[in-house]
């Protein structure tokens, strides 16, 4: 056993690391949302952003010994599940109608 590693494991991981991870994940989600063409990838990016937020919720809940953050996470997961169901249905409908999943070609919603 490496005492140093053991020492490290016993120690609390600092709050900052969790938050940084959360921020990185969120930014990846935003980036994916903005630059990917495939609608399904875009959709997955949204899930990534949601989970990044969930992570920060849980972090704070743990930090402040508050259960509210955890409850929020359940809400977000529930909404995400519903969103996934509806979103996938919409994607399938769009694909059937337009025969493509490229976001920049689904641009009929304008004046």
């Amino acid at each position, binding site marked *: 056993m490496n005492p140093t590693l053991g020492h490290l494991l016993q120690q609390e991981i600092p709050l900052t690391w969790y938050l940084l991870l959360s921020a990185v994940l969120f930014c990846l989600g935003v980036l994916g949302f903005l630059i990917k063409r495939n609608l399904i990838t875009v959709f997955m990016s949204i899930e990534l952003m949601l989970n990044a937020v969930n992570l920060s919720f849980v972090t704070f809940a743990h930090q402040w010994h508050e259960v509210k953050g955890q409850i929020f996470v359940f809400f977000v997961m529930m909404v995400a599940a519903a969103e996934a169901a509806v979103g996938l249905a919409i994607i399938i409908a769009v694909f059937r109608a337009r025969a493509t999943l490229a976001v920049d070609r689904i641009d009929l*919603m304008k004046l």
Partner: protein
Amino acid sequence: MTGSLHLWLIPLLPFAGFLINGLLGRRLPKALVTAVALLASLGSFGVVLINVFSMLGSIHMPASLPVVETFGTWINTGALHIDFSFVLDQLSIIMLLVVTGVGFLIHIYSVGYMAHEEGYWRFFAYMNLFMFFMTVLVLAGNALLMFVGWEGVGLASYLLIGFYFQRTSAADAGKKAFIVNRIGDFGFLIGLFLLLANFGTLTFSEISAKLAANPAWTGGVLTAIALCLLLGAAGKSAQLPLYVWLPDAMEGPTPVSALIHAATMVTAGVYMIARTHTLFDRSPFALGVVAIVGAATALFAATIGLVQNDIKRVLAYSTISQLGYMFLGCGVAAYSAAIFHLMTHAFFKALLFLAAGSVIHAMGGEQDLRKMGGLRNKIPITFWTMTAAVLAIAGFFPFAGFFSKDAILYEAFQHGGSGKVLWFVGVVTALLTSFYMFRLWYLAFTGESRSHDVRPHESPWSMLGPLSLLALLSVVGGWIGIDRFGSFLAPVLGEVGNSATAPGGKQLDIMLSIIAVAVALIGWFIADRLYRQKPDSPARIAAALPTGYSVLVHKYYVDEIYAMTIVRPLLFMSKYFLEWVVDVGLLGGAAWMLAGSATLSGAILQRWQSGNLRSYAAWLAVGAAALLVFVFVPWSTVLANFGIHLGMAGQ
């Protein structure tokens, strides 16, 4: 006084008639419309009569009059308190008797005159509406309620002048009457505001009481108030310079001319001055203006009346002239003489108009005197009643006009140095009056008929009955005498009888009467020479004096002058400045600018809605980032680095 007099019935009965005929008249049978209208005005007259008779025993007990009946509070804000209150005193009794009595007779007459007209129900609804407002005007215990009646009779007058609204001239005449009256009403309103500001009340009795309590209070603001009220009176009573609407008002049906534009409504100005005479008494200047306006109008209108060929227009100018007499009477503080003349004038002028209506009826609608003639034997009853009225207005003893005109002229003569001038103007006017009335009389009734395609026929009895009654009143109406009349009105108008009091007054009175009658005889004689003995001479005189004649025929070009100086500039300004610059330019331009800027910004902003999902998301991200920056950047510190301090940060 035991119990209520139910004064509210007097105006409300005609109002009920107006509501019934106005709302349902179109569907009601004609007989029912007639019955409602006649009963409404008869009922009103009846209530007045009952009140007068119940009071006859108590006339010599001044405590019993005036009777004030209050039916509730109208306005009550701070210092301003105005009631719905009616006042029955000697003055309003006289006016009510004239208004409802003559009004009822004219209603009867109208049944015959309007029998074959379109809108029979409409006519009677308006007539009843007029009776309602006129009785409100007369009974009103404060100036504001009087103003309601004042405006109301103006409305009824407008509606009735424009009764034949398909005719453009009638509609225009209605508008003209209304607009010219508005100028007068403006004066009346300003007068009311001044009264309110200086007296704190609009109740006539309180104003008089305050004036009586401050005997030193003269001139100044009282003159201003009196002149404002005079402007209102001049508008309603068709005096210079606002008389122009009355001749045009003859576009209305003849009974309307008789009731509204001769007997009752146009005398409202005289009544108003008499009602507020305590104010005028305190302002010699305003009284002088009243007298001058009256005398000038009397002479001015009489000269125009000399050459008019429309039978109703002759009478219209005669009405203006006679109203001038009443103003002259008011102006020399002879209010009871003015009211006396108001009453007799109501009789004989209503009669003149109704008889003229009967003539027009007989001639099948012809109003031009030049096309009449020889009607004497064809419509004898109309002829005789007309004769009585002509004698009365010309001022022959013992007809009604003699007594009242004599009273005014006598008072004018007694009124200091300037009074002689006023008297002289009055006498000249009397000469002209006599001349143009006999001219009308000769042209219509004597000689040969000048139009051959009409068969004159006597009017039905519903028209002849009122004619006969009014003819009777035109004869006997003045017999009461100014002394008794004046002493009856004295509790309100605060005068003593006239001729008996002044030294040598009786002889002077008789002398002046003889002059007046002589002058009337001269007028008759001239008319006789010109229109009976030498029927071609008027044309020769007109040819000899082309300028004078054309000035008179064109009514001194007053309408043209008003059109040039007031109407045209107003229309010009309305069209080119108000319509084009203000309305189309400024207001329309502002509206277009607003709409245009919305459209333009919309056109720019709509590019944001590209339909591209990723651009939406990008903007969302940018927005979120901007919000974060805004919230978390410590702005005050950042700006402080640049030397800018926000709010308290610098202290």
